[in-house]
């Protein structure tokens, strides 16, 4: 987990899509939103949760690993950038490689686009647009300590198992305090909570 990062707390999400609208306002892909809002239990409940890029750390971002054109840069602070426009060939390898379904491809422009953690804002010490506006704090930007100071007892996970492969991410997810090993939406068991292996 990076120092300052996004924490996703699905328990707070009200499905308002302010994050989706805010993402469109970001200067790095103005007019297009890089957030997926998923509904976990349609027809039964209004539950929803946003998916932003998880900024995988270990193994180093699968999207970047498979990119034949070396278009996806990972910065020293762990941010997985969107494809470099001068290099991307629009092959969509990254789309297939991402375990979280994050990158989007503009086939006409032959260009991949994804969340780059609002690098234009975070580099100035501001929070990313989505986490800034999220009216409920379902998207929170800060350090784990800051999150825990505000939400006592909160537990987060930043490793996810896909079969035998475990992916550790820069972005973390809040998990229920009384259920450390819990299938996250999509059916993946949480393997690490607040940095502790719970398998």
């Amino acid at each position, binding site marked *: 987990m990076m120092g300052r990062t996004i924490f996703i707390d699905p328990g707070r999400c009200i499905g*308002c899509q*302010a994050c989706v609208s805010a993402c469109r306002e970001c*200067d790095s892909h103005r007019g297009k939103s890089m957030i997926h809002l998923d509904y976990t239990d349609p*027809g039964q409940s*209004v539950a929803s949760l946003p998916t932003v890029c998880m900024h995988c750390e270990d193994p180093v971002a699968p999207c970047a690993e498979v990119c034949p054109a070396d278009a996806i840069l990972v910065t020293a602070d762990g941010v997985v950038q969107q494809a470099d426009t001068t290099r991307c060939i629009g092959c969509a390898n990254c789309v297939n490689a991402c375990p979280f379904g994050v990158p989007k491809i503009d086939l006409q422009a032959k260009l991949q686009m994804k969340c780059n953690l609002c690098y234009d804002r975070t580099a100035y010490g501001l929070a990313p647009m989505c986490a800034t*506006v999220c009216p409920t704090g379902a998207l929170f930007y800060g350090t784990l300590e800051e999150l825990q100071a505000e*939400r006592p007892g909160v537990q987060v996970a930043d490793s996810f198992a896909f079969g035998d492969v475990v992916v550790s991410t820069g972005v973390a997810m809040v998990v229920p305090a009384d259920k450390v090993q819990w299938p996250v939406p999509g059916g993946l068991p949480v393997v690490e909570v607040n940095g502790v292996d719970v398998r």
Partner: protein
Amino acid sequence: MTATDPAKPAPLPLDPAIAPPGTRNFRDAGGIPADRWHADQNGETLVPTHCCFCGVQCGMYLRVDNAGKVFGVEPRNHDINRMRLCPKGINAYQQVNHPDRLTSPLMRRSRYEEFKEASWDEALDFTVSEIRRIQAAHGNDAFGLLGGASLYSEKTYLVGKFGRVALKTRHVDYNGRLCMVSAAGANKLAFGIDRAANPFSDILLTDCLLIAGSNVGECFPVMTQYVWGARDRGATLIVIDPRETAIARTADVHVPVKPGTDSAFFNAVLHVIVEEGLTDEAYLAAHTTGWDEVKKTVQAYPPARSAEICGIPASQIVQVARMFAGADKAMAFHARGIEHHSQGVENCLSVINMCVATGNLGKPGAGYGTITGQGNGQGGREHGQKADLLPGGRSIMNEEHRRQICRIWGIDEADLPPAGTSMMEMVWQMQRQEIRGLIGICNNPFVSLPNYGAVKQGYDTLDFHAQFDFFLSETAANAHVVFPVTVWAEDEGVMANTEARVVKHNKAQEPPAGVRTDTWVMCELARRLGVGDKFDFAGSREVFEELRIASAGTVNDYYGITYERLEATGGIAWPCPSTEHPGTPRLFEDGRTYHPDGKIHMQVVEWHPPMDAYTEEFPLSLTTGRTVAHFLSGNQTRRLGALVEQTPRPWVEVHPSHGFRDGDPVRVVTRRGSEVFPALVTEAIRPDTVFIPYHWPVPTAANALTIDALDPRSKIPEYKVCAARIEAAERVDEVPAPPTAPGRQAYPETQVSRTDPLPPTSSQGRGTAERS
């Protein structure tokens, strides 16, 4: 009308420990943001202002380019919202330079003609001659005026004055009548003051939060952070709502009462509180009148009886009573869900009785509140555009109050008209030709009033109808004259939010050529009507100075509030009687109310059934509400691409027990009419209830189906319950595009999915996927 003592900015007291979660201790009232982000390639400026939409009044910056045009939004670290915004707030800036903006007056001499662009002189002269003609033939009261609660308070003050002084008519009312007048009426009866008792930040300090009839997540999204913050600190959450909304989903108790049974529920809760000895007798003895009668009345509401009326388990009533009364500090919030009823005032009084009986008032973390719908729903009625109110919340029936206002306005007491009728009643008067001419200012009754058939008939019967608006609304498209006026970012002014905190909006750009402020148009009409000397205002600031003086000494005292103080503090809650006064964020801290005896006047409430009777033919309850992407009649949000894409069309929410599948065309029939919507099948609603969001015009208008029954005291329509049935249909009704001025193409981006007959995509995705 002169500015008095120069204002000394006095910072509002703010407890730094009370900050919504995720916000830490930063504070920025309105000057240069400490954490400003310089996207300076274009030399852009950030203009601090507030969102134009709901009663939360989130602070925001408008990004203005070096040509002086608004082109974006930047979150602002204001006390109320601490950077947070909902999708409406984020997209609001797009309406400022929207291609659908009206930029020239539109005019036609009869409804059989097409609209033509006209000069301002032509349009104003025609309007004035029609006013004169109608009033000469049928009396002054044959001309009506309907204002709006999205206007700045200065403009709402001017609407009231223009109606009484220039038009000399008793028929002045406003669309806040459709919003929170039930709560206003109840608060006035019980406390002698018409506003919520506590600031948002008190929610963070409470131990038990009860929310009744309010879909906070969708209607007041930014308030949710306070609710979740209270949960973080261990508060319990009780939600009363026929639907399982985003807030209800995580509540400790969700009580899905049947629409129209709220006071039966709250009376039963109070019954249990009394039975179990959980009342605060010392508080009741010291501060209230009428408690004995209330106590006697609730005896007739044992949980078993109310459980049957409300269609819920009796155990929930007991649970809620113990949770609320057992908490150290408890708060109750309500909104349109319990207010939009033919017993809306009584519903609110039954909530107040519960708070008062448990001594939950006047303390940090304990109190009550009504959540305002429109941005200026609170401020919009305080200064005289409501049929029975004069500036400062004075009563138009009170001799002394009339005398005071006539002195300020410089008119003869005999010339001040008596009280008029409410918005819906005015429509009935139009049908009967008692009202023959009308000016509407920033309202859209063709979508927002109940029983569309009656509304259309009423407006069609008018001899003359003028509207002020910046987009051609469905109502304006039916008028004889349309005046193109400014959007919020092109003028300055104040609004009072849900907390009764007055905030200042700033001007971010010049209006397009041909567009005037509402203030200018009203003053110009007044001048042509021969009373220009009473309307000599250059802009909002001068109107505000007169408003301050007109409110001085009343309960709604704005005297101590100045533009300078608002800019320095980020908002001041009224009453604020002097420029040294810090404002009154929390009411009743000294135990005194605003009644002359200083007591809380508790009122007896008896439940009675909704006006539209259930029969075999109409067995279901139809209820209506909002979605997060749209605002009220949708005249603004139905034109913004991102919001249209998020929620392109209305739907009817039905329980799976009716046998429909997602997207099936379902005809909803009431005694007023029938329309076909795609079904959204979900277990998050009561089996005996169906829900339709109301932001669209016919043939997809919830309000073509709702009933125009009114609360006898507040005259609010009973939007939230009427009898209905549903049946299978062939195909869904198409969503019409919003009207645009002649010679203009509708903004293509807003057409996304507009006539798409596919399954509904509610803002919250209810039922968008099939379950096996």
